[in-house]
């Protein structure tokens, strides 16, 4: 082993003993999870094995009944997707979680819209549409996704393009994983 790799790779995310019940149904029973920095991990299993439940718990979309999640060794508690997101965890959901009647730029910035600088943004809350569209276009371009216009609504896109928007959004914002 070279000196550069001598240190134990720190765990980017770790979960211990995650449990989730839906009434009588046990969706997840003491699941442990470890993800190293830079690692790509696939979670595999049968239908109903609890893959989605695990991911949702890690993404803050549901609150586990018990267990503990650690980010970079720090214990965290996500009570909403926003919490997870603020901690730098981005998720591409199965159902993609895009608002079909909003355009691409609006979807990429949904929940963290950019306001104009100065008085217009601070007091009138005016959106900086131009900047958001520009950044969204750059993001889509850098990921090699082509669409007619960044102002197209999601409902006019193909399934693959929709997926790309969801992925582009996660990639654009992901601070940690």
């Amino acid at each position, binding site marked *: 082993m070279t000196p550069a790799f001598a240190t134990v790779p720190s765990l980017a995310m770790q979960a211990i003993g995650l449990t989730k019940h839906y009434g009588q149904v046990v969706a997840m029973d003491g699941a442990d999870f470890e993800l190293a920095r830079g690692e790509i991990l696939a979670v595999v299993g049968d239908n109903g094995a609890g893959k989605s439940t695990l991911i949702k718990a890690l993404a803050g979309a549901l609150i586990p009944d018990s267990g503990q999640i650690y980010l970079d060794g720090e214990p965290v508690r996500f009570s909403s997707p926003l919490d997870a997101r603020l901690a730098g965890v981005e998720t*591409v959901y199965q159902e993609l979680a895009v608002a079909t*009647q909003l355009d691409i730029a609006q979807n990429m910035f949904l929940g963290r819209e950019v306001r104009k600088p100065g008085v217009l943004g601070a007091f009138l809350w005016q*959106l900086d549409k131009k900047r958001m569209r520009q950044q969204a276009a750059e993001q889509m371009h850098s990921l090699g996704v082509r669409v007619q216009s960044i102002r197209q609504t999601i409902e006019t896109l193909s399934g*693959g393009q929709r997926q790309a928007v969801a992925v582009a959004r996660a990639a654009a914002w992901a601070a940690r994983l």
Partner: protein
Amino acid sequence: MGTRELLGRVRMQDPEMTVATAPRSDSDKEAAAAVATPPTSPRQQTLSLFAYPIMGPLFALTVIFVTFSLTTSTFMNAGNMSLIAQQSVVTGTLALGQTLIILVSGIDLADGAIMVLGTVVAGSIASHSDAALAMALGFVACVVAASINGLVIARFRLPPFIATLGMFTIIAAAARLYSQSRSFPVTSDLLSVLGSGPEFGKVVVTYGTMLWVALTLVLGYALNETPWGVRVYAIGNSPIAARLNGVNVRRVVFSAYALAGVLYAFAAWQALGRTPIADPSGYQLANLDSITAVVIGGTSLFGGRGGVAGTFIGTLIVVALKNGLTQAGIDSLYQQIATGALVMLAVGADQHLGRGHRA
């Protein structure tokens, strides 16, 4: 999660997705991500027409104006236009609040009752106390009542139809109990000021009309130019997607109802300007009128689609139709039939287009 890896898989799965090779023009940033070949399928064309949902209502309004201008001699003149505007302000202001609520996939059957409560509170207090205080308390009454709706719907997840139906009867009864079923003539200048305004020649442009236009513009700004507005549309479109994107759905839904309450308070003020009597049994069909105006204006009952510009036109359609049929000497019952048919047409169009889109 390895987003890059995911993207790689996505790219392989979808052959449509290739690296953009469109020529980059520095002048047009959007072109950087766009491709120079826009396919024009029939579906695409329907969609581009649909991108301007205001065109349908605008067309209907034009037809109404042209028809009555040709068939009656009294419709098309400045005086009658001023009258149409004055007849529009109460329903129009209520409908602005209703639009907000329908945009977040709700409905408010209590808006008229809340407005009437506002007029009664303001009217009764003004009869023995300061008019400014009366108006302030009337505003408070409207906002509190509407916020209760917002609370039970956003926090306790009652279906909006049921929650506001309950509030409708509760508020209507409360207004009567509070006033002991009396009505209060309003003599205060402050409370009735919206019925007056500067005259141009013989035509009055009332302050109420100006307020209605101003409120429409302010709300249009809030819906189209602020983060809050984007979230309102996102929630109406897909509350789950909004939540997963970190939008506090409960808070935004509550804010829509509470803000609607402010608009109902303005509607109460408009009502006192129009008829300076606070009558607890007045405006009983105002809720349906407001919903009619919103729906005819092209806002989808599914939520997430439409806006206040459409509602403004929708209100004018309802009022101009009634006004014109009256000028033409047609029985008011036929007017109601015409309005009802228009609503069904508008909802039918919405249903049809909405379903096509969801497919």
